[in-house]
């Protein structure tokens, strides 16, 4: 599943950049994230309860800051597993100067769901994933603008 969008953030680009490459900050905005453990500069591990309504699963997610081209572009890869299911996602963010000293973030995400969630929840997944990605970028915007 591929998703793309643009988020305009009323914060300067260097701050946005610093946020994006800081696991402790960007990690907080991951869907359902309950805890984050930083492994090194580019690797971190999170637990996240992901789902919709009362249907949810707890994932252990390994994340990697796979590409960083300061302060223009970053790619984060996530590989999450729960009993019987797995999620793999790649999110690419391209930053450019926005209006009034703000930052424009063009993003796209490629999400692959595997296992029983994909098999059994096919009719629910696309909408849910779309919403979660929207929430992630809304969260980043909110935190950066706070």
């Amino acid at each position, binding site marked *: 599943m591929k998703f793309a969008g643009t988020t305009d953030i009323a914060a300067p680009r260097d701050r946005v950049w610093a946020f994006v490459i800081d696991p402790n900050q960007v990690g907080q905005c991951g869907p359902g994230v309950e805890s984050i453990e930083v492994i090194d500069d580019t690797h971190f591990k999170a637990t996240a309860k992901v789902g919709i309504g009362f249907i949810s699963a707890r994932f252990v997610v390994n994340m990697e800051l796979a590409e960083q081209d300061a302060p223009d572009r970053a790619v984060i890869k996530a*590989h999450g*597993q729960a009993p*019987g299911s*797995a999620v793999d996602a790649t999110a690419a963010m391209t930053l450019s100067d926005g209006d009034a000293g703000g930052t424009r973030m063009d993003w796209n995400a490629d999400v692959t*769901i*595997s*296992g029983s969630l*994909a098999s059994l929840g096919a009719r629910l997944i696309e909408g849910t994933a779309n919403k979660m990605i929207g929430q992630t970028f809304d969260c980043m915007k909110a935190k950066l603008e706070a």
Partner: protein
Amino acid sequence: MTEILQTSPEIGGMGHSVKRKEDPRFIRGKGEYIDDLTLPGMLWLDIVRSPYAHATIKGIDASEALKIPGVAAVVTGKDLEGYKLHWMPTLAGDMQMVLPTDTVMYQSQEVAAVIATSRYAAADGVAAVLVDYEPLPVVVDPHKSLEKDAPVLRPDRGEDKKTNHIWHWESGDKAAADAALEASDVRVAEDIYIPRIHVASIETCGCIADWDPVRQQLTLHMTSQAPHAIRTVLALVAAGAGLPISEQNIRVKTHDIGGGFGGKVPVYPGYVLAVAASFLIGKPVKWIEDRSENLQADSFARDYHIHAEIGATREGRIQALKVKTIADHGYSDAAADPSKFPAGLFNVITGSYDFDKAFVEVDGVYTNKPPGGVAYRCSFRVTEAVHAIERMVDILAHDVGKDPAQLRLENFIKPDQFPYKTPTGWEYDSGDYGRALHKALDLIGYADLRKEQAEKRARGELMGIGISSFTEIVGAGPSHDFDILGLKMFDSCEIRVHPTGKVLARIGVQTQGQGHETTFAQIIAQELGFPVADIKIEYGDTDTAPYGLGTYASRSTPVAGAATAVAARKIRDKARKLAAHLLEASEEDLEWTPGEFHVKGSPDRKKTIQEIAFAAYTNHPAGMEAGLEAVDYYDPPNLTFPFGSYICVVDIDKGTGEVKVRRFVAVDDCGNIINPMIVDGQIHGGLTMGLAPALYEQITYDENGNNLTGTFMDYLLPTAVETPAWELEKTVTPSPHHPIGAKGVGESATVGAPPAIANAVVDALWHLGVRNIDIPITPPKVWAILHEKGIA
């Protein structure tokens, strides 16, 4: 074949609708299916499965699972590797993983086994095993799998096989078929996909493996259509692994089986895991798969991508056929086809028609899907063949402007052409295709329906009539051509007549609902005149039943049924000697009527078969062995070729694209009939399993190899509401080479029904320019066509 004498209802030989002997236990809930068995000290096995269709296993952490109360052990591929049990052979001679050591190849593949003291603890253990995967590129489409840059899925096959191509198989004369096609006035070509489906018997698969370390005895209670073959495979695997389990100490017992349809022929990793676990722990281990595991991991059927081309004269006289097919086998060829036929009996594709020239080729391909290629109630790829030819003939008829019934009648192999040699190498035993089609046309009122269709079409309503005149090929098979892993496809029967005139017979085939306890008793009743009530049929215990290859591909009646008749005749031959002794007459002077020998011309000078049986133990002549027993291992001289003509009427809802089967007439010819009631029941069930893939069932994958039809919520078996009231008729054309003239019927209807339905739908839409719709013909497919043509 010899003449079939009429028996009394009390004897209940052939032709009597004897009520089934197996039913009293089933209707009381006293059947004994695998999950009904509990052995003392038994443990439960449940399986951790892969969420990925293709991934590297980086690690398996069972520590949390082992903390769960009741969890006794977690077995991984690395554990099995120590015993060389991590791979096993498939019945098709390929290799399949029991548990992976490094790579998973399809979603829901077995990754580890949890053994626990209850099914609940085992399930909790499965949820607690953590497996670390690294995803790999997934190949779902067999066409893409054949491309040069596709990842090689099976590097284990060695350096010289760096391709996903498994095998190539062909039949017929390519040059002749090409030339004949070139010379044809009319050429019709079409791509036809026959999708992956699943037999989905209502009982899933399972077993209890019971290794007795003291007696060195393995008893495997399991759901198998072929218990003897399983025993031999287990013995070979054990020998390869150096385990002290040899064939005389392996007992496979099948008990009652809740439907097979081909899905219970293969050896699944779950069976081997249970055996391994029982061997390691020394206790009985039960494995019962759930429905999702059954639908996602057990052998599939079909998945043939067919390109067919037919050539004919302007008048529609069929001349040549050429077919190229890609067979998607998943990550391993685990078909249950005879060894020499990797594409099964697909080359029966010339069907009921008198082709001059034909050429068929099939290429097997690996993809990241579950292995298989088993039947779905059909004899080794016959359904695929029949669907292709019946669709092609229908398209040809429409193209040359001829009624599809008429075109068929003009191109059928004629009764006087039998035995008929096909251009792809088969010899059809007998047939009268025109008689069956005429009967079906009369029964359904074909001419009136065509009138009705014309009127409706004028009003803008969509109604279609579809015909299928199929020829089946069953009864595998003659030993010169047919084997599975070298085991020749004979079958067997052993009959023992007890002194009081009661009979125990054991057969090498197995019932999964076909009613063998009744029909095989009827064969013996027919041949020996004992009442059916006095005959007990046993099967499914390899310690007692004679060796046989099992029940699939409609082979029970053609092969084991023949063995039963021949064994009975051996007994009758001895009975004749005994009767001659008792009546003080010469054997030649005795005449047999069902149940007794009498002296020709003196009907009162007679001995009943019961009296003769008693004498076999009490008063047999000097020099004759005591007892009245016989065994026969029957090697059929040829296959049998049941056939039939089906006609289907459909109405299409223009608003939603829904197809409703309004009527369906099935005229079957399965040769001589043993039990008409059971034959009709087989046809009813077969038709419903033909309706299913035509309109509802398909195993569907997304582009990542996730199975989207892993429960009965999404894999749609028809209910009583979707299923029409089938209308049945028969013609009888006996098989000339079968001892009782029977041909077998279990699968004809599943083979013949889908093209009748598809042809009806296309017929309803032909005037809009529609030539083919691949099954299952779902409402969205029909609606998309109607929408494109501006109708919806």
